[in-house]
């Protein structure tokens, strides 16, 4: 960890996060502090509890104990949709787009919490409804354009090739207007060329949308290439934390995770 004083505001602060499933310990005493604009990686062997941490941050699981503070607000106890509305968006390990809907609708759904008109406005098609709908459409199309997806806006999401689906998922997460973006294995199933593009994309959206990014990844090239800080966990516990260089040379990490080859 940096020992120098941080001047940037704290975005996410996790303390003592612990999760048991029945008797099974998935995450134990996990800490993490993210500052505004951080790009941090979370790595560890399969089943180490990485996705469980994501699920607790986003409220899908209720932690057994511990606290998660986002911009000073305690998140534990909030419903997932409320957490998203507070400004945390995520993608999923195995892409979870709304497959039978168009790409555009996928984004417009993510904009629902910002719709700003009531149900009756919708049913009666009031002026407010038309205005807001136009704004939603504008915003969705803008995001698609940024992600280079304009041409596929009317395609069903499930008909897109894999790489584009990944991008739609990121676009959809961005539509939630997040301050913190959680990416769960964004490079899974990508070839080296696509990974390079993805790395550029992550950098680009972080700067463009002023995001803080936390990502889980197995592709060492991506993690080592773009993350400023890396936390390694095994059996739900932190075993190392540091810059990519420190991690690569950490004997415990090599033993538990990287192996001699890497």
């Amino acid at each position, binding site marked *: 960890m940096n020992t120098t004083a941080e001047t940037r505001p704290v975005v996410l602060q996790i303390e003592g996060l612990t999760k048991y499933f029945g008797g099974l310990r998935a995450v134990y005493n996990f800490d993490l502090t993210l500052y505004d604009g951080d790009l941090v990686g979370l790595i560890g062997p399969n089943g180490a509890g990485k996705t469980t941490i994501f699920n607790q941050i*986003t409220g899908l699981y209720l932690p057994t104990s511990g606290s998660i503070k986002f911009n000073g607000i305690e998140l534990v106890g909030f419903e997932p949709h409320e957490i*998203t509305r507070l400004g945390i968006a*995520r993608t*999923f390990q195995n892409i979870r787009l*709304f497959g039978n809907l168009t790409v555009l609708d996928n984004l417009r759904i993510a904009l629902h919490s910002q719709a700003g008109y009531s149900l009756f406005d919708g049913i009666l098609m009031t002026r407010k409804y038309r205005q807001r709908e136009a704004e939603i459409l504008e915003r969705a199309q803008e995001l698609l354009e940024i*992600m*280079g997806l304009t041409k596929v806006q*009317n395609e069903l999401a499930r008909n897109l090739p894999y790489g584009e689906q990944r991008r739609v998922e990121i676009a959809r997460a961005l539509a939630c207007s997040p301050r913190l973006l959680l990416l769960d294995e964004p490079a899974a199933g990508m070839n080296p060329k696509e990974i390079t593009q993805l790395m550029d994309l992550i950098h680009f959206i972080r700067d*463009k949308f002023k995001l803080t990014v936390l990502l889980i990844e197995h592709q060492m090239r991506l993690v080592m290439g773009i993350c400023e800080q890396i936390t390694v966990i095994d059996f739900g516990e932190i075993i190392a934390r540091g810059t990519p260089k420190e991690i690569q040379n950490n004997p415990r990490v090599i033993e538990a995770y990287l192996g001699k080859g890497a």
Partner: protein
Amino acid sequence: MDLSVLLSFAKIIAVIAYLYGLFWIMGLKVRPVTIAGKTLDLSLAINVAGVVVAFGIIQLALTDFGGFRILNEFDTGLLYQACTMTMVALGLNLIYGFNGQFSLGQWGFYGIGAYAAADVTYRWVNGDSSGLIVLGVGTILAGVIILLVGRSLSNLRRMPVLSSFTLYLLGALVSGYVAVLIGRWVSPLLNPLLGTNLEPGPLAQGFWLQIIYFLAVVFAGIFAAEISFLFGLPVLSLGSDYFGIATLGFTIVVYTLMVNSDTFLPFPEMRGGRGMIGIPKLTTWFWAFLFMMAVIVSMRNLIRSSYGRAMISVREDEVAARAMGIDVAGGKLLAFVIGSLFAGLGGGVYAHYIGFLSPGTFDFLIGFNPMIIVVFGGLGSMTGTITASFGWIFFLEGMLRDVLGRISPQAPSWRYVLYPLTLLLLMLIRPEGLMGKIEWGFLKIPVVPLRDTKQEGEVA
């Protein structure tokens, strides 16, 4: 084949063509015209005119021109039945087709709407205004209380669903009790104006009676919606199949209560299993058309709004929907309540067309029909549901009964053997339903044109 069989066929096709024409007109967009330097957009005017003409055509066909009518008494019945079935099935399509909640409870809400509305007007024409007052005050009060409880619960987190349910239930019970007290107090003041069944008073005939009918149907719909809220709140948190079973149970519980309405429940006029008779037949084509169109239009607008998209996202993937900031529990509840509202309205219209309600009509076996219609027409297709509702009623109740009845008096019972076979064949040949997800006319979802890339156009 003899002539009348062809005629029946022609009727089915004519009715469905009529509906398509109506939807086509409603979806019509004309280019603005310039008259005397002023640009006028006549789209809305043409749409409204089209709807009025569409209403008028059937109204003419129903009118008796000195012994000659295009649609006879039997066809009229089918028409009204088809309208109510459309409302019920559309409500179910909202719940199941668009929101993905497998509900078998639609028939129960339909029954609740029918009995509630019937009870109000029955009492009214028999000189008792308490039905309307209790139902009206009760539903409004309960609605207000439910909203208040909801507001005060909204800043509590992780409240167990059973506890919030108990609070809502207490609120509803209190408002029901208050409504009964008010009814007891106010109705004697109004009753003298109502007269009796044989000598109706000023408020129990003509225009006023129509108003009362309208109120009865609307309040019955809201009543069904409120019941569905109370029932759905805890039950919607169950998984899909379990929810299906619980709603099937709801239909059966409602049925059982109907059978025991004069013993277990304090409604002697409903006469339990013997069936409720003497309901004023107030449903006219005007009302049936009005309610049906109201349901179709509001559902269509709902689906196209952000709320509708949120509902659809719940069907597609609940976890992803939550992660996108969508209140999944709220979305399910909303769809369920609105769907039940439609069913309740349908029930009210039905009760006043048929004039006789028997619990047998609301048996759960028959309650599968809306589900079958929705699947037949295509899940998530409003056009399909409407077509299937009309086709179903006119074909199964109309044509098959007519045609088979001519073969032998026993033959009509064969239609219930034929219809599961048709169903089986359809499912084997086209499991996604007749229409799939296709929409037509004004129900069609417009394709959004690509955006002009005139802006800076950064591409990652």
